[in-house]
């Protein structure tokens, strides 16, 4: 694993109206690192991913992705807020899988996966379809290419969601509680897909999760968030077996019991 940081937050602040979510927030992720983010509800976990996916702006500080500023661009020797064109370019590095799948209901599974590669990346239909077939194979849904999302189970939908994100070949994959909307018996089929991806170590992954065993198993690093700060971070063994901070202990206790 290279030590080059692919994501860097520097003194980032983020507010919603009067509520401050992040204040002077610093955080970095190395290339191909798999980082799990855990923490109580409202601590800013989703906001962190949404800022990276450019779904939310920031109010202060800088974020670098792949060595380039995400929300700013150089102009006349200084930095100005990013243009749509700059954001469009930066999004190329990033992919996201959503808690509620957000599949396109009017398109078949295959078109859900091929639409963006064709329209955004300019792949030919045959290339895009070949990729979609491979990805559907990967997530175990080769036989569902012509189904519509509403005819799939939750677990199947989410596996399509993963395939759809992967089809854009992001180098950073953002996963926001991708199993929390699923019935318990469907969680494993989705986590298995992520386990396999994690083994290959081809992407940087940032995953917000409430599945502690899973976080422990796949991550290189676990960050415990509370009130917009990283209270404690470290190797999964350390965080889960010997947390140092009281708040981490309390949170994990509440979870594991």
């Amino acid at each position, binding site marked *: 694993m290279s030590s080059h940081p692919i994501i860097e937050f520097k003194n980032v602040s983020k507010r919603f109206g009067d509520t401050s979510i992040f204040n002077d927030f610093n955080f970095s992720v190395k290339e191909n690192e798999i980082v799990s983010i855990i923490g109580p509800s409202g601590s800013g976990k989703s906001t962190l991913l949404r800022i990276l996916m450019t779904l939310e702006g920031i109010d202060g500080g800088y974020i670098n992705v792949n060595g380039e500023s995400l929300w700013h661009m150089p102009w006349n020797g200084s930095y100005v807020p990013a243009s749509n064109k700059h954001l469009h370019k930066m999004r190329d590095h990033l992919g996201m899988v959503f808690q509620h799948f957000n599949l396109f209901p009017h398109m078949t599974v295959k078109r859900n996966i091929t639409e963006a590669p064709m329209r955004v990346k300019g792949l030919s239909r045959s290339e895009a379809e070949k990729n979609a077939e491979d990805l559907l194979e990967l997530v175990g849904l080769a036989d569902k290419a012509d189904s519509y999302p509403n005819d799939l189970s939750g677990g199947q939908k989410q596996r399509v969601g993963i395939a759809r994100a992967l089809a*854009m070949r992001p180098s950073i994959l953002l996963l926001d509680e991708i199993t929390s909307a699923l019935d318990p018996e469907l969680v494993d089929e989705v986590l298995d897909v992520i386990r396999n991806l994690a083994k290959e170590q081809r992407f940087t992954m940032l995953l917000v999760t409430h599945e502690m065993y899973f976080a422990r198993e796949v991550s290189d690093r676990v960050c415990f968030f509370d009130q917009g700060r990283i209270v404690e971070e470290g190797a999964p063994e350390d965080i889960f077996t010997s947390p140092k901070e009281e708040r981490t202990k309390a949170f994990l206790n509440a979870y594991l019991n």
Partner: protein
Amino acid sequence: MEFGEIVSVLLQGAVVTIKIVAMALPLAAAMAFIFGLMRLYGGFPLKQLAVVYIEFFRGTSALIQLYWIYFVLPLFGLSIDAMTAGVIALGLNIGAYGTEVVRGAISSVPKGQFEASVALNFTPSQSLRRIILPQALVGMIPPFGNLAIELVKATSLVSLITIADLTFKAKSLADMTLQVGEIFGVVLLLYFVIAQCLALCFRYLEKRLSKGLGRGGVK
């Protein structure tokens, strides 16, 4: 006057009414989309322009709008024939109500659909065309159907700027023959039939469109 004769005269009027509807409806739909999208996504000054259009045409009387276009604009050197004036006035008026239909249907597409299109790096216009509008369209059809019927009813206003539509024919027949019962009975029936035919078209359209949205439909 014989009943058959009355019916045949009124049918001529009905044809004119249908013609006006057929021309004003596409205009209204175009206005609804253009100004509805401007209202939703336009920056300054497009959004403000849309608001002015919408509030003006919804907030003033359709008859006065018609009079303006037909009687007042010529004073400024812009004269148009009665038929065109009628189509424009009705199209703009119903279109202003249509903007709310477009806006409402687009706003009711779940936010997650916009977010997924950003995450997949679609441009705003791609996401509107390929992701949002196909889902919003189905929801627009029933309220558009209602507006189409409003339009049919509003066409009777054009009789006041000398267009020989159904209402115009009915009134002149009534003045001439005094057989008001038969005449207005037939007129009611004809308006009702026109409206029902339109309603039927819109129901068919709705069915067709929701078919394209996958077997499960949009949830």
